[in-house]
C-alpha cells in the first residue's frame, strides 16, 4: 500500500519533469513545478514516516515487468529504505518550498525545472530498488540529472569544469559499483537482492566488494580522497539543488554503502571496521580543515559535507567492528549514531545552503570577503543561519551535538574490542573526531561572523534585502527541526530502532518512556543526556539573569562609535576577514595539511608600488593523487595517438588478436 503510494509519487515526479520540459517557455511553469514537487514529497514523506514509525519498517516488495526481460524491476521498502526516504523527502519538501521563492529569480528556468523533479525521482528510486540492475540504473539516473542541474549555469566561469569533473567521478563511482554487484552476483548472475543476500561471499571476494563499494559510494558521498568533485560541483548548482546534493544525495550514497555492506555482503570481518573508521576519521579532519581555508560560502559548506560524511563513516566503521565481534548492543549504538547524524546533517546542511542561497540572491556574492553586516539587512536569515551553524558545530542543545555525543559514547565502548589494531585506532579516531568538532565551531564562527556580523565590506552587502517568505518558511522549518531533534532526541532514536534491528539484529533500549525524556543509550550510571532539560535550564538562567540585571542595573544605553582601543573610525576593510580569521589555524595546521604558503611582497621605502600579501593553499589530494593520474592518462593518450592513423587491416588484426587473447584467458580461468 505504502509502496504503491511512493511509486505513484515517483511517477508524478517523472510526469512533472516531462511537463516542465514541454512548458519550459511559460513563466508559470516554475511555480507549478515546485508546487507539484512540494505536494508529492510531502505525500512521500508522510508515507515513509508512517512506514518507519507506525509499521516499524515492516518490509513490502513489488515487481514490475519492465527493464531486463529475465529480471524485471524489483522494488522493496524496508526500515532502511523508509529512513532514507524520510531524509530524501524532507530535503525535497523544503527544497521545493524554497524553490517556490528562489526559483523566481532563475535566469534560465528551462535548464533547471525539467531536471529537478527527475533528480528527486531518481533519489527516491535508488532507495526503493531491490535488484542490482534497477539500483545501478536509478543511481546513474540520479547522477546524470544532478549533473544537468550542476550545468544549469554553465556559462559562469568554472562551472563547466566542475560539471566535467563531477561527470568523471560519478561514472567512475558507478563503474566501481557495477563491478561490486558483478562480484556479488557471481557467475550465476542472480541480480536481485534476495539472491545476493542468500549467497555467502568468500573472504577475498567480500574484501574486493568492500573496496569497490567504498570507491563507488564513497566517491558519491565525498570520502577523502574521492571528495574533489564535491566542493566544485555542489556550489555550482542553484542553491536549493546544492542543498539537495550536499544534504541529501550524499546520504543516498551512504544508503548505498549501508545497503551493500551491512545488508547484502553478509557478516563483516573486524578489519572492515578499521578501514572504514580510518577513512572516516581522515575525511572528518581534512574536510573541516579545507573548509576553514575557504572564503566562498558555498564551497565552505560543501567541504563541511566531507567532514560530516567522515563522522557518519566513523559511526558506520565502529558499528562494523562491533558487529564483527558479536557486540550487538554496541553495534546498534554506533549505527544509531551514524544514522541519526545522517538525518541531522541533511537537516542542517540543507538549512545552511538555503541560507547561503538567500545571501547569494540578495547580494550576488558568495565570497565572504565581500559581505559582512548582513544581520542588519537580513535579520531572519541571520537567525536561521545561526541555528544551522550552532547545530553543525555540535553545540548543545541542537541536534548535531546529540549524534556526535552518541558517536563518542560508542567510541568509549570500544576498549572491549579484542583486536589490537582497533585498540590503537579507535582512540586516535576519537581524537580526530574531537578535533574536527572543535575546528567546525571555529569554521562556523568564521562563516557566520564574516557574512552576517561586522560592517558591510561592499555596496552590495550594504544594500541587501531580506529574502522572500517561501525561502524563509523553508529555513525556519529546518531550524525548528534542528532544535526539536536536539532537545527530544529520544523519539528520533526510537524511530531508528527498526533499522538497527533489521541490519544488526539488535537495538538500543527504548528511550521515550524514560523520566524527563533523558536519553540513556547504555545504562543510567554510564551516561545520559537530556537536551530538553539543558535547554530549559539554560533558557531559565539566561532569563533570570537578564531580568535580575534589568531590575537592578542601570538601563541607560548610549550609542556611539566603536571604541576599538581609541583608533578612529576605520574603514570596514580593516575588519577581520574570513582569511585573516583562519590565519592562526592555517599557521598551526596548514603547513602539513595543505602546504600553505604566505608571501609578503613589501616594497622598499620610496618605492610607490603597493605592498602585496599572497596566501596559497593547496588541496594535497589534487597534487599527489589526481595530478599524477592525469599525467599518466595524458601520457598514455599521447602514446596511443598513433593508433588513430592505422590502416583497416591493422585494426582487424588488433580486434582478432584481442578476441584470441580473451578466449585464452577464459580457458585458463576455467
Amino acid at each position, binding site marked *: 500500500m505504502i509502496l504503491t503510494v511512493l511509486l505513484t509519487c515517483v511517477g508524478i515526479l517523472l510526469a512533472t519533469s516531462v511537463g516542465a520540459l514541454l512548458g519550459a517557455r511559460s513563466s508559470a511553469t516554475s511555480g507549478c513545478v515546485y508546487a507539484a514537487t512540494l505536494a508529492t514529497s510531502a505525500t512521500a514523506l508522510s508515507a515513509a514516516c508512517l512506514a518507519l514509525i507506525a509499521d516499524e519498517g515492516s518490509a513490502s516488495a513489488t515487481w514490475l515487468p519492465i527493464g531486463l526481460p529475465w529480471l524485471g524491476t524489483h522494488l522493496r521498502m524496508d526500515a532502511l529504505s523508509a529512513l532514507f526516504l524520510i531524509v530524501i523527502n524532507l530535503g525535497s519538501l523544503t527544497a521545493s518550498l524554497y524553490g517556490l521563492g528562489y526559483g523566481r529569480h532563475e535566469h534560465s528556468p528551462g535548464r533547471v525545472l525539467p531536471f529537478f523533479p527527475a533528480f528527486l525521482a531518481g533519489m527516491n528510486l535508488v532507495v526503493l530498488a531491490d535488484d542490482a540492475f534497477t539500483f545501478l540504473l536509478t543511481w546513474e539516473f540520479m547522477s546524470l540529472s544532478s549533473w544537468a542541474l550542476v550545468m544549469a549555469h554553465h556559462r559562469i566561469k568554472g562551472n563547466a569544469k566542475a560539471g566535467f569533473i563531477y561527470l568523471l567521478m560519478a561514472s567512475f563511482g558507478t563503474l566501481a559499483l557495477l563491478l561490486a554487484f558483478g562480484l556479488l552476483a557471481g557467475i550465476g548472475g542472480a541480480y536481485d537482492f534476495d539472491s545476493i543476500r542468500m549467497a555467502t561471499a568468500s573472504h577475498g571476494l567480500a574484501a574486493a566488494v568492500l573496496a569497490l563499494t567504498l570507491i563507488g559510494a564513497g566517491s558519491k558521498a565525498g570520502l577523502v580522497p574521492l571528495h574533489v568533485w564535491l566542493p566544485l560541483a555542489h556550489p555550482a548548482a542553484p542553491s536549493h539543488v546544492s542543498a539537495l546534493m550536499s544534504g541529501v544525495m550524499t546520504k543516498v550514497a551512504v544508503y548505498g554503502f549501508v545497503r551493500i555492506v551491512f545488508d547484502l555482503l553478509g557478516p563483516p570481518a573486524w578489519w572492515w571496521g578499521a578501514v572504514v573508521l580510518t577513512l572516516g576519521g581522515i575525511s572528518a579532519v581534512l574536510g573541516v580543515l579545507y573548509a576553514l581555508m575557504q572564503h566562498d560560502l558555498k564551497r565552505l559548506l560543501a567541504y563541511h559535507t566531507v567532514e560530516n560524511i567522515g563522522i557518519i563513516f566513523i559511526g558506520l566503521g565502529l558499528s562494523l567492528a562491533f558487529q564483527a565481534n558479536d557486540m550487538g548492543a554496541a553495534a546498534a549504538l554506533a549505527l544509531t549514531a551514524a544514522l541519526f547524524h545522517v538525518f541531522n546533517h541533511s537537516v542542517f546542511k540543507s538549512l545552511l545552503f538555503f541560507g547561503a542561497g538567500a545571501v547569494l540572491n540578495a547580494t550576488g556574492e558568495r565570497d565572504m570577503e565581500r559581505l559582512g553586516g548582513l544581520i542588519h539587512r537580513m535579520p531572519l536569515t541571520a537567525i536561521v543561519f*545561526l541555528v544551522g551553524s*550552532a547545530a553543525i558545530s555540535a*553545540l*548543545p542543545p541542537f541536534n548535531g*551535538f546529540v549524534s556526535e*555525543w552518541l558517536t*563518542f559514547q560508542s567510541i*568509549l565502548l570500544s*576498549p*572491549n574490542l579484542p583486536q589490537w589494531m582497533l*585498540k*590503537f585506532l579507535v*582512540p586516535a579516531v*576519537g*581524537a580526530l573526531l*574531537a*578535533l574536527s568538532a*572543535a575546528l567546525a*565551531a*571555529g569554521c562556523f*564562527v568564521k562563516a*557566520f561572523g*564574516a557574512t552576517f*556580523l*561586522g*560592517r558591510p565590506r561592499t555596496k552590495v552587502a550594504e544594500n541587501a534585502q531580506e529574502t522572500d517568505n517561501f525561502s524563509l518558511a523553508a529555513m525556519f522549518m529546518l531550524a525548528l527541526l534542528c532544535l526539536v531533534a536536539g532537545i527530544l532526541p529520544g523519539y528520533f532514536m526510537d524511530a531508528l530502532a527498526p533499522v538497527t534491528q533489521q541490519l544488526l539484529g539488535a537495538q538500543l533500549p527504548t528511550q521515550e518512556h524514560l523520566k524527563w525524556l*533523558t536519553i540513556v543509550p547504555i545504562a*543510567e550510571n*554510564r551516561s545520559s*543526556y*537530556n537536551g530538553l*532539560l*539543558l535547554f530549559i535550564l*539554560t533558557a531559565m*538562567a*539566561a532569563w533570570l*539573569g537578564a531580568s535580575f*540585571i534589568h531590575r537592578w*542595573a*542601570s538601563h*541607560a*544605553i548610549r*550609542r*556611539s*562609535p*566603536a*571604541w*576599538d*582601543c581609541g*583608533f578612529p573610525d*576605520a574603514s570596514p576593510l*580593516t*575588519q*577581520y576577514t574570513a582569511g*585573516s*580569521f583562519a590565519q*592562526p*589555524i592555517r*599557521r*598551526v595546521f596548514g603547513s602539513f595539511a595543505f602546504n600553505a604558503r604566505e608571501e609578503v611582497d613589501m616594497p622598499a621605502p620610496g618605492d610607490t608600488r603597493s605592498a602585496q600579501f599572497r596566501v596559497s593553499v593547496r588541496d594535497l589530494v589534487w597534487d599527489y593523487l589526481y595530478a599524477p593520474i592525469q599525467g599518466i592518462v595524458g601520457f598514455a593518450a599521447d602514446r596511443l595517438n598513433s593508433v588513430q592513423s592505422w590502416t583497416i587491416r591493422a585494426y582487424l588484426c588488433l580486434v582478432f588478436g584481442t578476441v584470441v587473447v580473451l578466449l585464452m584467458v577464459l580457458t585458463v580461468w576455467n
Partner: protein
Amino acid sequence: MLDILVQFAQLLLVLALAPLLTGYIRKIKAQLLQRRGPSVLQPYRDLLKLIRKEVVMANNASWIFRAAPYAIFATTLIAASLVPTFATGLMFSPAADLIAIVALLGSARFALALAGLDIGTSFGGIGSSREMMIASLAEPAMLMIVFTLSLLAGSTQLSTVANFIQGPDVGLRVSLAMSLVAMIMVAVAENARIPIDNPATHLELTMVHEAMILEYSGRHLAVIEMASSLKLLLYFSLISCMFLPFGIATAGQGPVAFAIGLVSYITKLAMGGFLLAVIETWTAKMRIFRISDFLGAALMLGLLAALLLFVSRGT
C-alpha cells in the same frame, strides 16, 4: 526534595564563590610581587560598579552583541552548577555528562567569539580568531582527558567518576597523572591565564579574551566578567571532582558529610588558587604561535593516556 535543595545550594554556592576566587587569586599574585593588592572582595565591588554604569554600545552593534553576555552567562552557570562541588549525585546531573559539559562551554565560547566579531573592529576579530584557534586544540585535549577518566570509571557521569576515583579500585595510574597534567594545561588555556593569555591587560597584541570583550561596557561587561569568574571556578571544581574528589559527600548522606564536603571543597579551591597564582607569577607569557605547541602537548598527553588505557584493558 533534598536533591533539589542540594542542587540549588550548589548553584548559589558557585555564584557566590566565583568572584571571591578571582579576587583571592589576584590578592595572592599581588602579595607574591610584594604588593598589598586590592581586597579579595574587590571583584564584587567591580561588578556592582559596572551594573550601575550606563552601557556605551557601538552604533552598529546587533542583537547578537546584546544577547551574547546572557547566553554566555547562562551556559557557563548551568555547566558550573552541574559539576559536583561539595556533594555528588546532583539532581540535574543526569541531564549532562562530562562530554555535554565540555560542549556547553563550547556553546559559551561560540557566543563570545561571535560577539567579538559583531562590531567589526580588528581587535574583536583578532580575539575571536585566536580564541577559536586555542579552542580547536584545547577542546580535543579536554575530550581526551574525559575519555581517559570515563574509561577508568566506566562512565561519563561526573558523579560516578568522582565516586570511582574516591573508591579503592583506582590505584596509582600513569594515565591519571598524564591526564591531570593535560587537564591543568587545558584549564590554563581555557581561562585565558598566563602563559597563554594575560587576564590583567588591555592593549597587548597577544591578548585573546580581553580583545573579544573590548567593546563591552556597563552591565554587559559585568555579566561577562561574572561568567569568566564562573568558568575559572568551574575548572577548579572539575579538577577537584575528577582528580581529587576527597571529602566530597555522596547523595543521601547527612548534613555532617555536606559540611565536610564544603570545607574540603573550599580548601581545595584555596590551594588550587594559590598554585595558579604561583604559576602565573613564575612564568612569562608565550608567543601566540607557541600556544599550539603547548596545547598540542596537552592533546598528545591526553591521547597517550587514553591509548594506554585502551591497550591495558585485558583480552
